[in-house]
């Protein structure tokens, strides 16, 4: 089963980024760290390069629509994994319902490219600095972002 970083590692991270990490939540043996969007790149680069963490693999990147009545409405979720150390960490950045946008992590992990395109396609979250932010799964002329909670499961008839 997945291993989370030790409590000391998390405490050290919170101390190092007292401003950037706005909260930590633990559950079912997994740790989620909430990152202020403005500091995302800094935190990610540190987590990848620092020998204590070595999160060299971005396992997954996706979005969540928390609901129409929620503010902040969107969450971008990063699942980091360290091949040498074998631990996992979940990073989360919360974004507002109007014009959600966040820095792209493609300079840190190349694999973010398609993940971010998918998240843009599905949620309409814009990734600043992405080299090629186009729709990836839906057609180019598609107007909606289907994984938003206000999009009906059966879609719209006129498409």
């Amino acid at each position: 089963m997945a291993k989370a970083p030790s409590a000391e590692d998390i405490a050290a991270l919170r101390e190092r980024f007292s401003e950037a990490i706005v909260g930590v939540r633990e559950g079912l043996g997994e740790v989620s760290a909430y990152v202020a969007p403005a500091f995302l790149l800094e935190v990610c680069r540190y987590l990848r390069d620092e020998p204590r963490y070595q999160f060299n693999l971005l396992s997954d990147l996706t979005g969540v629509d928390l609901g129409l009545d929620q503010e902040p409405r969107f969450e971008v979720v990063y699942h980091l994994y360290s091949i040498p150390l074998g631990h996992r960490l979940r990073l989360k950045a919360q974004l507002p319902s109007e014009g959600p946008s966040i820095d792209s992590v493609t300079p840190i992990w190349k694999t973010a490219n398609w993940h971010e395109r998918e998240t843009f396609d599905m949620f309409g979250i814009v990734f600043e600095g992405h080299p090629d932010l186009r729709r990836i799964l839906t057609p180019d002329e598609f107007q909606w972002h289907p994984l938003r909670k206000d999009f009906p499961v059966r879609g719209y008839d006129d498409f």
Partner: protein
Amino acid sequence: MELDQDQLRERTRPGRPPAERTIVAEDASGIVDISELSGRELGSTMTLSMGPQHPSTHGVLRLELELDGEVVLSTKPDIGYLHTGMEKLMESKKYLSNICITDRMDYLNPMGNNLGYVLAVEKLLQLEIPPRAQCIRVLMCELQRIASHLVWIGTHALDVGAMSVFFYAFDEREKILNMFEDVCGGRMTPSYFRVGGMFQDLPAGFDAKVRRFLSEFPAALDAFDTLLTGNRIFRNRLQGVGVISAEDAISWGITGPSLRGSGVAHDLRRAEPYCGYELYDFDIPTFPEGDVWARYQVRRQEFRESLKIVLQCVDKMPSGPIKADNDKVVLPDRDDMKTHMDALIHHFLIAADGFKVPEGEVYLAIEGSKGELGYYIVSDGSERPFRCHVRGPSFVNLSAMPDMVKGSLIADVVAVIGSIDIVLGEIDR
């Protein structure tokens, strides 16, 4: 004979329009040898759309290739032709119904997809799975890995021109699918796994069938070696093609056999054991070259490692229940329903209303046949997932493909696609 520029162009690149460019270099006679110039400088590159119905693209993948003669300058994969909104659909269906959806993502590895999903839900529910169910799960997943690799070896060989392997490979795969049919009735989309255990126990005589397969299959592997591994043409087509370094592979998020072909001994069955994989003895084959040949070698050896695990499963298959002891989540046995009122009520409630899953979120990754297969499930405490995201290894591995084929010949593109073993059903979801 002295040629002027137009004649030179006509000779080296017949029928091409004159290039719009400034002269890059001039020799003493004032003639530029344009054969030294790249297609981009000459403006003579060609864009070729490969797919979506191309047989070597393993489904409906379209590649936009920018070519200079036969050399690939850049590649843009175009995906989404099979997009069916499975993640959206999963939000509207109950946890139990979603198992059938996972089958249809990577349709060559449905048992693995089932497993990743039910493990994630079971982690949210904190269910304890009995040892027999765990052993059946490992047995099924390893047989499925063999079946998936058989499709890979058949189509990969077919792509580079060796046709007969395909028939031998599908013949062997048929035996595995027949076994799946015996245990649950399904072949391509078995949906054999349930949250909390299995749909039903193994049928009588299954053990003997697996053992017969175990005794017969090594001969097929030897035949593949004769046909491919020792085949000089095949080897020349694969060696040194589609190279990716370990560092790049990790940055691109490549996992599974494709990562192990770049020399990184990373396998989630060893790194984060699930279903009791820590109890089994198996090796993780790695090859450092990072080319198509290395990836071929990794999967070729994984056949035998999976066989080792399957043999250990049938040797020490524990007896006991195949479902967790939880009436509120696990469907009762059919026989119990005919004799016990409470079993019938539980079945009705689970089938009609579903079961509630405690609030929380989980990311659970298993080693699928193609790499890290992760399920990220967010539960809001209801009987339907609030969000279910699938991290498909094919999706991520394909995104690295343009890097692997840059500068190689167009014939090598099909070799590279074959070597990363993609399934479009999972890429598009």
